[in-house]
């Protein structure tokens, strides 16, 4: 059974009074411990799909099944409880946190909200989470703006795994990081996937990164699926015009999965 099954998803917005489809009849599935990449040019609807899947916005049509249940049927407390299993990591790790927060508070929130640990146990949990993502437990007392971008993205990942999700949506999660940090974060993601069997919906416009981390890829063009398949096969031999253009625009592809 797939972790996530999206079928015939559609979302329309208005542009200059005219309705247009930001997402148009999109379907895909993600299996347990699998990474599915969404690729496509700017404005092709990648982030809109992420927001639909996370129920941050509602679709105009389509169906989302998460862990075998109709995800769109949930609301209120039932939805909030189910959210523990479906997490997200944003592109800009600074914008993703309350500017007043400390690292400890950021990690404390999900533990408290989903009753994962009692008040007295939580500091120990937070330390363990920080260590799990390769950070020093002493970082907990720092304010979010007092740590580096790479550390911040690790905190974002720690927050995402705090509730033991089965799927994490990563929208350009490594795009803002410099190359060496990017490699380390990708390593961490692969390691977490191997150990915790987490599935990723990995959004990126960088085919090199996708080739390194994703099992399968869906290439989008103007809200529609242009082509999809095994990540290496598609990137080595794209069939669609947009796929060919994306490959041509990527100067040097990383050869192997690290």
């Amino acid at each position, binding site marked *: 059974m797939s972790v996530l099954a999206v079928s015939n998803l559609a979302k329309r917005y208005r542009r200059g009074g005219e309705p247009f489809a930001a997402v148009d009849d999109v379907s895909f599935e993600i299996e347990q411990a699998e990474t599915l990449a969404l690729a496509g040019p700017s404005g092709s609807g990648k982030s809109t799909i992420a927001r639909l899947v996370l129920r941050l916005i509602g679709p105009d049509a389509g169906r989302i099944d998460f862990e075998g249940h109709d995800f769109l049927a949930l609301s209120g407390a039932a939805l909030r409880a189910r*959210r523990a299993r479906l997490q*997200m990591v*944003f592109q800009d790790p600074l*914008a*993703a*946190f309350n500017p007043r927060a400390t690292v400890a508070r950021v990690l404390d929130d999900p533990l408290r*909200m989903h009753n994962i640990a009692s008040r007295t146990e939580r500091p120990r949990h937070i330390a363990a989470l920080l260590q799990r993502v390769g950070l020093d437990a002493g970082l907990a007392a720092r304010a979010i703006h007092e740590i580096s971008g790479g550390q911040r993205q690790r905190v974002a990942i720690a927050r995402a795994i705090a509730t033991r999700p089965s799927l994490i949506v990563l929208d350009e999660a490594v795009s803002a990081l410099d190359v060496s940090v990017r490699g380390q974060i990708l390593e961490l993601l692969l390691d977490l996937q191997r150990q915790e069997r987490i599935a990723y919906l990995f959004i990126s416009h960088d085919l090199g990164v996708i080739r390194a981390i994703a099992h399968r890829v869906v290439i989008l063009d103007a809200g529609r699926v242009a082509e999809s398949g095994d990540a290496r096969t598609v990137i080595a031999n794209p069939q669609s015009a947009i796929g060919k253009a994306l490959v041509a625009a990527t100067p040097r592809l990383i050869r192997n999965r690290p």
Partner: protein
Amino acid sequence: MNRLRRFFRSPEAIAGALILALLMMMALAAPLLFPGDPQAIAGPALLPPFQDWPLPLGTDRLGRDVLAELFHGARTSLAVGLAAAAAALLIGAVVGTSAGFAGGLVDEVLMRITDAFQTVPSFLLALAFVSIVGPSLGVVVAAIALGAWTGPARVARAEVLSIRERDYVAGARVIGMHPLEIAFREVLPNALPPVLALSSVIVAAAILTEAALSFLGLGDPNRVTWGGMIAEGRTVLRTAPFLSIVPGVALVLTVLGVYLAGEGVVESTAVRRSLS
């Protein structure tokens, strides 16, 4: 610390802070320096100022000590001004945050109510409220707050509308935070700075409104107020003008002090923000 240094670099801010500090000291010292009832008769009626050492500012029409009244009046003015402004800011922040965060029908209803309050002149509103409910300190505070919360509500709503689209609010939803907690714990604190920037104007206006209500005889009758003193003095304006001038000057200085100090705070934080 930097902010403090920048605050004290502007002479207006220093003047404002000094006036406020003096006022605070007057308000706090009033029961110590003048422990008796300030409304009790202390000497002959209409004693001019600087004639009699125990009554340096003289006495009013009924022989009450003007200096004692001035000190106790500072207490009322400050207490009412601060309490009314605090209440107005609190109501405004809660209403504005709820409207901006909830959106849709809730927003529509709350903002129409805000409009309604805003179209009635706030002084008339206060006047009507006190006339109906009856004058006491709490009622005066409520009456003033009733006409002052709409400004903070609008500013808070505008700020919340922009904050609500930020990634971290989406992040809070994704981890399953309750909407009320998101609105009041994640969004509201970050929407506060521009709302608090209104406080000096609101405190100043509240002090003036309180004085005007007392002048019209709608203040708490058990307390000395500057507005009440001015009203008292008006009847003997020709023979004893100082009875109106002394509380009048105190009122002007207070409003000026609040305003200057408030501007100083806003300026020093604004510089900080444009630098970062």
